[in-house]
């Protein structure tokens, strides 16, 4: 009883949480450093899933297909992200917020439609990799072993990247450039290249989230809206631009979602919305965020 009513929702909730944390950490990285809210982040996630699907269907015979996809797909997304930064986003750093939002949104429409053109409107799906397609028992609860991969890989990567960006020289450079673009340039930091790299890393995180999600559900050309919505919820709950805020927000979101689904399947999404509303009233800048200005 306790297993199905408590342990199961915790495990599935945490899995959802870690996946969305990975995606939201990319969004947070880009927002925290470049001050750009990337509406196209959900599209990167979707591309990650499609690229992974493409690799797996190309290497259908080989069991390694999934793992190749897991490496290649996010890299492919990072390249797409790099091209977008170089040709489009770069022009918007000094523009008004409204322009930045509209530019990233225009990419949602464009890439969304290109995806539909390339892969069609059917739902795609792929199977879980060999070795991770079984069900194991965790504290007596049956859990798909693939979930374990997400549970451990997603936070490890997000955390590792965060520490790398915080503790190394690159991290200082990013903070300097975020704080004062001109001054950082004057000190010899190649800010445009730095921003390009950050944008690519952020896109990579989104793509990785998509590639990890791919064997779990169906892949379809409008899947980007839902994940963007969830990332936004997580960010608003945790505090926009805060890495640990995204972590806490994701866990709260995941658990509320899975317990909500367990007991009120029709209204599973609403609990997260209610939490968001409460937080907006008592702490508009989010749990771990900082007040604006």
């Amino acid at each position, binding site marked *: 009883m306790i297993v199905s009513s408590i342990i199961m929702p915790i495990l599935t909730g945490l899995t959802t949480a870690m996946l969305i944390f990975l995606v939201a950490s990319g969004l947070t990285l880009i927002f925290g450093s470049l001050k750009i809210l990337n509406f196209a982040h959900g599209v990167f996630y979707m591309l990650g899933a499609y690229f992974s699907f493409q690799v797996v269907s190309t290497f259908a015979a080989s069991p390694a297909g999934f793992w190749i996809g897991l490496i290649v797909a996010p890299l492919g997304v990072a390249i797409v992200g790099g091209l977008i930064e170089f040709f489009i986003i770069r022009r918007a750093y000094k523009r008004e917020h*409204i322009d930045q939002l509209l530019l990233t949104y225009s990419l949602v*429409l*464009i890439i*969304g439609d290109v995806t539909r053109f390339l892969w069609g409107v059917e739902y795609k799906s792929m199977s879980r990799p060999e070795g991770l397609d079984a069900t194991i028992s965790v504290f007596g609860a049956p859990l798909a072993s693939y979930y374990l991969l997400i549970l451990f890989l997603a936070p490890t990567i997000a955390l590792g990247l965060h520490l790398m960006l915080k503790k190394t020289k690159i991290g200082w450079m990013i903070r300097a450039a975020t704080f004062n673009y001109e001054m950082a340039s004057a000190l010899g930091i190649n800010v445009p290249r730095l921003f390009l790299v950050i944008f690519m890393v952020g896109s990579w995180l989104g793509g990785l989230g998509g590639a990890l999600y791919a064997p779990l559900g169906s892949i379809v050309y409008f899947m980007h809206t839902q994940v963007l919505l969830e990332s936004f919820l997580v960010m608003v709950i945790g505090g926009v631009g805060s890495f640990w805020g995204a972590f806490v927000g994701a866990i709260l979101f995941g658990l509320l979602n899975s317990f909500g689904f367990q007991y009120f399947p029709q*209204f599973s*999404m609403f609990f997260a919305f209610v939490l968001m509303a409460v937080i907006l009233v008592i702490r508009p800048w989010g749990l771990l965020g900082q007040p604006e200005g």
Partner: protein
Amino acid sequence: MKQIIARLESLGFAWWGILILLLALLPLYMSETYVSLFSEILIMALFAMSLNILIGYLGMISFGHAGYFGLGAYSTAILMTKTSISWILAMASAPVVAALGGVVFGFFCVRLTRIYFAMLTFALAQIIYTIAFQWESLTGGDNGIVGVTFPDFLYETNNAYYFILIIVSVCAFFLFLIVNSPFGSTLRAIRENPERAEFVGIKIKAFQLIGFIVAAVFAGIAGALFTFYNGSIFPDYLLWTRSTEALIMCILGGMFFFSGPAVGALVVQWLGTVLSRHTIYWPFILGLTLLLLVLFLRGGIVGFLTEGYSKIKARYHL
């Protein structure tokens, strides 16, 4: 009274009179297909104009305006199909319900600024979409509400068109009065410089909330008109792509001009209808248009024309 008339004249009101006259004569020189298209354009123009209160006059960019359009559309449709109240009351419920939605959601939204505001409007509109999608007993879920029937005489394309034209004109007139009132000037002051506006004693949040509610009310009316025009409503009309379509209309037409969103609605809706016959990749075209507009033509069509006009004027010393 004289003062009011003089003021209206100074605001170029004669042009609006001519425009409405032309629109009123439209069924005389256009086929029913086009009259029907223009009905839709008028509704979308009202929707875009209501959104422009937020983005053009308040400088707050909303990605969830379709939510209020949907509240109006659904309240009309639900009252028409589930109860026996008259169609006039059912349509009149739209602005009320949309206003309630505006109060509740606006309360949260105006607490946040700029980017955070955009995120939240998107998220909240998605709730309205989810409700419409999941609450099957009330909203019909994915299948929506079909067969909303209005009185017979309104089924004639031209009559329906005139009905829509009258309502949209009246709403546009009210919007015009609102943005040109001291209230409208206050909104612009807040857009230009929130800090300074606060220092001179303007309660920013209160004005933003009122602006938000006004925008929601007119979006709700547009929604009710849409239910009337379409005879049905589906959750798809609440998606954020609908919100952003209105956003694109404002940007394309020119969000710093009162007429901008209407011009944008004309172009987008017309092109959308024509191009949709040939290609399913309309969002791609829309996205590319938006991209180019933001990068190269920030003032939109009306801005471009106004600028061109003043250049010509200067060139030939008119």
